[in-house]
């Protein structure tokens, strides 16, 4: 259920072409506070490109993005927007020569966090990084690195969080705790979360709404149950496999 009428993020007819290849085709959607919106689709569907455009790392070919009602293409507005949101991806790491605590200290500075030491202590506790807090980032396992990335993503108490496969390299226990934490902060802090994952059970469990992307287009949207029903499937995994294998649905 969408909790309020004005979305924190609005995407209107967003498109991106790389030469003749159209990666994203006229995609429109909205993200509300207290909502987890799952972006779903096979590799190359355009999920990551959309996230990169929302973060201003890739410029759209056409279309419009509004975050907190501001335009991220304008540099002053972009600064304001980015201070209120954050991002984590399995494919992005942290400064490997620094220690975990030092690394978080740098990001606390970048996000202008007040009382950074207290915030970092809390995040280290939350993401089970106590044993590695004084270790160099380069020595972390992939699971620890993912947790560090997530800790970084919460450093500024973001109002919008963009997560690109955040649980991809976590063991089932930590992945489950992370999901529960995300559901909790969504509720308690009224946070808006845009989420991508290739774990269909996870997407079904965590997402309030889903956008199913294929070849850069949204081919279905709704709650997980609505999307499964739309494709007459048993569950999301079956639907995903049908679409990824280009089976007529």
């Amino acid at each position: 259920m969408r909790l309020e009428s004005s979305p924190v993020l609005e995407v209107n007819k967003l498109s991106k072409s790389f030469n003749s290849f159209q990666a994203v085709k006229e995609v429109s959607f909205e993200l509300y506070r207290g909502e987890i919106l799952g972006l779903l689709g096979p590799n190359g569907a355009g999920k990551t490109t959309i996230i990169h455009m929302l973060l201003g790392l890739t410029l759209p070919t056409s279309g419009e993005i509004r975050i907190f009602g501001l335009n991220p293409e304008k540099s002053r507005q972009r600064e304001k927007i980015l201070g209120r949101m954050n991002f984590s991806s399995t494919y992005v790491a942290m400064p490997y020569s620094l220690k975990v605590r030092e690394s978080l200290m740098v990001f606390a500075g970048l996000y202008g966090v007040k009382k950074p030491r207290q915030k970092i202590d809390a995040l280290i506790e939350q993401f089970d990084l106590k044993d590695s807090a004084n270790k160099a980032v380069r020595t972390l396992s992939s699971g620890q690195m993912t947790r560090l990335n997530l800790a970084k993503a919460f450093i500024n108490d973001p109002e919008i969080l963009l997560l690109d496969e955040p649980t991809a390299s976590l063991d089932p226990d930590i992945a489950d705790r992370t999901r529960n934490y995300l559901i909790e902060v969504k509720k308690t802090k009224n946070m808006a979360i845009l989420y991508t994952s290739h774990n269909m059970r996870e997407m079904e469990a965590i997402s309030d709404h889903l956008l199913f992307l294929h070849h850069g287009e949204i081919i279905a949207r709704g709650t997980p149950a609505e999307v499964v029903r739309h494709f007459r499937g048993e569950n999301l995994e079956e639907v995903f496999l049908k679409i990824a294998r280009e089976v007529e649905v």
Partner: protein
Amino acid sequence: MSFRRISAMFLRHTYLYRHSFTRLIEIVYWPLLDLLLWGFVSVYITKLTSQGQTTPNFLAIFLGALILWDILFRSQQGISVSFLEEVWARNFLNLFVSPLTISEYLVSLMLVSLFKVVVVFLVSSLLAWLLYSFNLFIIGLHLLPFMINLIIMGWSIGLLTTAFILRFGQQAEVLAWGIAVLFQPVSAVFYPVSVLPHFLQVIASYVPASYVFEGMRAVIMGQSFPSGYLLKSFGLNFVYLVLALILFFHMFRVVKVKGLLVHMGE
């Protein structure tokens, strides 16, 4: 010993040259620059001895030149290698999804570069004094504008390098180590500009560092300090820094349009 395994490894390395123009160029790049640099040093010494001129204080000239050249080199590396650190660490995206602006990022790189320069300068000067009884501070107050000019030229080269790495990816990484050295023969670091052939003298006249090193030699040899050189050096540096900044900002936008920025950190 398996010939097959050895040739597989040989192939593994030669494949790199097939796919990378920069690696191919690198094979001839360094020997060519060494040849040019030491060739002109030899020409300079030969000229001095054959003309029966008073031999200048080579120790002071070479050590002074070496320390000052290192200022330019470290200043450039402070920009381009610090940038590469983020790329290697796959941390680049994390920075640019934070409120950090590109101007703030560049200023921070310049500060890092300044810090490196100060440390390198102090250590080299101390070692030159301890090991060779050479006191760089005989250059006196002129040392400061010399250093400022070399730092600014280093920043311009660093920005240029970084702009190319942004655009062409990690295969342009080699520029971070190689591009400053390209300016060394025409910067007249270890010999006067007059040693160079005419066409290289023309090029040297557009290189800010050449005026600094000519000035340094003049001061060490007890001649009057050519203040016009300093002005030319500052003027050229101003133009190059502005151009380098324009190029960097332009490239930053181009890579965002082409979606290449995201590959920097992944």
